[in-house]
């Protein structure tokens, strides 16, 4: 049986994903420092409202409220023993919301990073990371997720562990990294590097791409590099609605719905198949994105100049690929000891 996302990918030219989870939950009263995943059992109506926000705004795919639902993250809240319960609950509420919509909607089980560094630069072993992702992933699937959705990853090691967990669960999956440091991920992965890496995995994802990062324009620059090396794979663009600002005690993202509509069309024209938002992307942004995608004819592949002109400038001079990538990270050495 073909999974729902694979089917939709084959039927449709583009799919609209969802927007922010954290920003929406804050607006519903989540306190800074609290674990959003607790609301899957304590504030189920609010989680349903979060999901309905995406569903009613025209999302074809939305993510479960389980970003920090792995044992390593939940440990912070002394809830490391509640991984299965909290993940399953997040997916069950999502399944209900999707099924009640009357549309064909994909429930994507969100799995964020462990927050720890993996071997060789950190202490977390590959096996332990696989186990954590597998535990969360199994519960998301049990709760009714159609696909597992690994997001905001920065290292190949962690993505590899998540991919292996998805393979062990025999689950369809998608994976995105966050490119926030001079065009690369914090750990130095380039956009083209991610394409090569994902296409080389034995249990390949249905789609891969970028989420979060700096702003919408940076994310599209990342997509530009990714498309070139993707070999026709399905790509995901989930950018932030602009840049965060602190306004009267709240975080506010400066990207307007209109701007996100333009972003969505540029992402599609670049070659992204699944288009959504990340931090700061509210239901009104999603509505504008869907309308723009439906009403704007497909254009030629936008240049970096057009992206910057439309959405604002980039945060760094280069995206860290090409010549810069070849030169780094070694500098001229005088001599080397054996």
């Amino acid at each position, binding site marked *: 049986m073909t999974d729902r996302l694979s089917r939709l990918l084959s039927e449709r030219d583009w799919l609209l994903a969802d927007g922010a989870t954290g920003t929406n939950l804050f607006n519903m009263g989540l306190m*800074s*420092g609290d674990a959003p995943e607790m609301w899957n059992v304590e504030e189920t109506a609010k989680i349903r409202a979060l999901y309905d926000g995406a569903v009613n705004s025209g999302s074809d795919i939305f993510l479960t409220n389980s970003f920090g639902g792995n044992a390593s993250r939940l440990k912070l809240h002394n809830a490391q023993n509640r991984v299965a319960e909290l993940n399953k609950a997040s997916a069950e509420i999502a399944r209900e919301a999707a099924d009640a919509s009357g549309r064909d909607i994909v429930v994507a089980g969100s799995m964020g990073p462990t927050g720890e560094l993996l071997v060789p630069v950190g202490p977390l072993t590959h096996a332990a990371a696989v186990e954590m992702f597998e535990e969360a992933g199994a519960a998301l699937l049990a709760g009714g997720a159609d696909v597992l959705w690994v997001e905001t990853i920065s290292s190949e090691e962690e993505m590899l562990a998540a991919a292996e967990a998805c393979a062990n669960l025999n689950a369809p999956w998608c994976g995105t990294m966050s490119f926030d440091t001079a065009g690369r991920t*914090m750990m130095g992965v380039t956009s083209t590097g991610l394409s090569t890496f994902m296409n080389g995995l034995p249990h390949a994802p249905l789609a891969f791409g970028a989420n979060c990062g700096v702003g919408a324009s940076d994310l599209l620059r990342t997509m530009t590099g990714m498309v070139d090396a993707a070999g026709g794979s399905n790509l995901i663009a989930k950018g932030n609605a602009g840049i965060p600002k602190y306004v009267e005690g709240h975080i506010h993202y400066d990207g307007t719905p209109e701007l996100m509509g333009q972003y969505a069309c540029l992402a599609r024209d670049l070659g992204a198949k699944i288009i959504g938002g990340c931090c700061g992307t509210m239901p009104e942004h999603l509505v504008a994105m869907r309308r723009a995608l439906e009403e704007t004819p497909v254009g030629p592949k936008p240049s970096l100049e057009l992206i910057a002109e439309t959405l604002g400038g980039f945060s760094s001079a*280069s995206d860290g690929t090409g010549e810069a990538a070849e030169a780094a990270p070694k500098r001229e050495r*005088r001599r*080397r000891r054996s």
Partner: protein
Amino acid sequence: MADDEQDIILSELDDEELTLQMHDDLYDGLKDEIMEAVHILLGRGWTPYDILTKALVEGMRIVGIDFRDGILFVPEVLLAANAMKSGMGILKPLLIETGAPRLGRMVIGTVKGDIHDIGKNLVSMMMEGAGFEVTDLGINNAVESYIEAIEREEPDILGMSALLTTTMPYMKVVIDTLVEKGMRDDYIVLVGGAPLNEEFGKAIGADAYCRDAAVAVETAKELMARKHNQQGTV
């Protein structure tokens, strides 16, 4: 790297060459070589303070520049910082013994609700690399934990880190508490983390937002110098 490069024996290098070699070895995160070179320089009668500043701090400054410029990334910097730390391990007791001058003191921690400490650890290591004494409070710090630590450690600088949009507003809670207690102006407050920016830092009342660990070090030095100048003119 070409294979035909000749092997070099650290102890055969003169002081200047050895210092430059240490900068390279730090850059490449070669821990054993750094420790060996520190011992060699101590054997040649260098003061611990000179080894710290001319070899280690200068080497980490170069690492910091390439990190800031997007040439090095977190994995390489972690290796470099670990090599630095192994050299510091030898020097630390000697620095205390010899009464070497101190650059400054910092208390740093990730805010309540946030487990992420990779960026914070980098700042902590780079600050130590620059010669600061750092007390690292780890992750998930409530305002009480910050207050208790700064009362105990009497630092020059308070550093706060957050990686999530759900936790970054907590920095303001800490700063507001410092203001209420009349302590805010006693410290330089630096904030950092992926979702932050300069405007956010200003809005919550921090002295500066630091984009990365290298910028944190530069900013800390600059603000410390300014603080000293102000105190000098009073």
